């Protein structure tokens, strides 16, 4: 992260330096984790790895294979790295570094976008917090396509915050944005949602230039996306003979049925969506009391700790205590973000700037809730599924923090940097050994 506040007062510059230091520590932690975290312990690691192997061999993953339904961009980049890097670097470590680079790229874009609505120091502190939040720290320490989707989604959504007023300039701007959103959809199907939201944002902006101009622009933008996406999604729809084939593997829909439906905790109930067990704060793991029958609980726990227990050894007492402290500390940014969200919704000028990212965030959240209903299993309640919404989350947090007075703001900045530094320590793999 570069220091862009050369003209800022010395105190503001000091915040930028402090944020840069924590960001640098987070980057070093990712580099360490890429090699220290045992191979293929990552979420769905073997499935992702086989997709990379298929592309390494020069063929597309079989759509009927375990994770073959995922779009190929991340895997293609991973296969290139596999060919290019020396054998001394394990392939899984290279794939994790790819995730880390994509994740930090997304955060750098979000930081730049935040500077449009808050001070550079506030933007830097919030960007650092997002980079260090355990959900992001763990996702960027693992191999998988979630972070590359987040990168392109964030890039596309950030562009919707500065669509030119001139219709012709807006049209050119829209092509690039559509390309970025299509790259997001070429990383993970979540990107399709970004593509739709981006299209709507430009249609709304161009409505003043006439309906036919707006429609022509939309068609041209769709053409750009279609050129990139049709080969993958078309093939998937044909091979699996189902539109659902774009979001799940062929095997889970076979005659044997969906494994998720027969595994505990069984059916979801409406109460699961309003229950927030205390365990989410004091024992933030999926096997703690009340967590299996809650959606907000595991969602919170996997944002501010390792709710799934995939990364941290939760059976080690000192680790579970440290994770509980992180979950408690997570209350500060969570409350700030909720305050910021309310403020954005109430203020027209903020709504206008942040509309597309917020709509995307809301739609992704609804899709996430639908998934938790359709797949009534704790593994479906993972905050990393919402990683592509890091820009709207950062916007809410930044607005929440900047709305306070100077003295309180100093407190919040200190608190957020403290939480960031602590989360970086917590997610430094192996600190407990």
């Amino acid at each position, binding site marked *: 992260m570069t220091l862009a506040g050369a003209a800022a007062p010395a105190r503001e510059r000091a915040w930028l330096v402090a944020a840069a230091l924590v960001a640098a520590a987070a980057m070093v932690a990712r580099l360490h984790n890429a090699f220290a975290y045992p191979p293929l312990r990552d979420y769905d690691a*073997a499935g992702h790895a086989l997709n990379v192997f298929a592309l390494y061999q020069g063929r597309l993953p079989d759509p009927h294979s375990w994770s073959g339904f995922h779009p190929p961009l991340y895997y293609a980049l991973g296969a290139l790295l596999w060919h290019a*890097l020396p054998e001394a670097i394990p392939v899984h470590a290279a794939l994790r570094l790819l995730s880390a680079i994509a994740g930090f790229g997304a955060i750098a874009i979000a930081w730049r976008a935040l500077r449009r609505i808050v001070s550079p120091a506030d933007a830097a502190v919030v960007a650092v917090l997002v980079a260090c939040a355990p959900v992001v720290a763990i996702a960027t320490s693992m191999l998988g396509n979630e972070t590359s989707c987040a990168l392109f989604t964030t890039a596309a959504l950030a562009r919707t915050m500065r669509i030119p007023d001139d219709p012709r300039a807006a049209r050119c701007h829209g092509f690039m944005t559509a390309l970025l959103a299509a790259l997001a959809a070429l990383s993970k199907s979540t990107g399709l949602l970004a593509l739709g939201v981006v299209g709507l944002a430009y249609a709304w902006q161009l409505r003043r230039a006439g309906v036919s101009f707006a429609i022509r622009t939309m068609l041209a933008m769709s053409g750009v996306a279609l050129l990139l996406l049709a080969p993958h999604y078309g093939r998937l729809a044909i091979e699996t003979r189902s539109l659902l084939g774009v979001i799940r593997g062929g095997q889970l829909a076979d005659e044997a049925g*969906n494994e998720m439906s027969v595994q505990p905790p069984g059916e979801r109930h409406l109460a699961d969506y309003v229950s927030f067990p205390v365990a989410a704060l004091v024992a933030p793991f999926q096997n703690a009391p009340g967590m299996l029958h809650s959606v907000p609980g595991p969602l919170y726990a996997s944002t501010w700790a390792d709710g799934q227990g995939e990364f941290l050894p939760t059976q080690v007492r000192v680790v579970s205590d440290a994770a509980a402290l992180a979950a408690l500390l997570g209350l500060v940014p969570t409350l700030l973000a909720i305050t910021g969200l309310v403020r954005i919704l109430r203020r027209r000028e903020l709504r206008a700037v942040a509309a597309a990212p917020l709509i995307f965030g809301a739609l992704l959240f609804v899709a996430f809730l639908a998934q938790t209903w359709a797949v009534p299993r704790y593994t479906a309640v993972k905050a990393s599924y919402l990683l592509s919404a890091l820009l709207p989350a950062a916007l809410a947090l930044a607005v929440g923090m900047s709305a306070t007075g100077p003295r309180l703001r100093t407190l919040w900045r200190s608190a957020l940097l403290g939480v960031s530094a602590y989360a970086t320590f917590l997610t430094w793999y192996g600190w407990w050994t």
Partner: protein
Amino acid sequence: MSPCARRATALLGLLALAGCSATERTPASVVESYFDCLAVDPLRTLPLLTPEFHRRHALRAVTQAEAQAWISRRESASQLDPERAEPELSTDRFQLAWLSIQGRPEFARLARESARSVLDVRESNDEAEVITRIEPRNGPPFEQSFRLAREGTGSAWRIDAVEQRGVVSANAVAAFVAYPNERSRRALEALTRGRGGD
């Protein structure tokens, strides 16, 4: 050409060079790579193995529903024809299990604990055999022979099958780590049950 385009061209050139510079491996070096990568760099084991190798190790990843359907079929199948109960699985299910088993931290630790050496290499046309000796930290040494195959002169040698000799209960864990497979896994499971689950 702009500086940006020059940089992109240079990068693509480097990647192409790296992609083409793979040296031809001998059967012994393929086996060495197998041991070097096992549990350390599991993805690099994949190009060393044939699809038949994966079917032979028989470790597989199945969904809960598939496992239940399999159990039902096995219970209803004739005792004389148990193979009919085996599910039809694609190669990726065996590869998934092959990779997943190497993700266990204790697996990597155990893999590092054994010393191995190549005893003999026999090569004939497009088939080869590499015999290795594995000395676990605990337990007696055992032999592991690899059968390799290639599609023709100039194509890569790949491991097609593995056989072990001299495996007893004292080195059964090391043998499983040197060649993870379903038969050894079940034998270890039975052994563990016999010892009271320790």
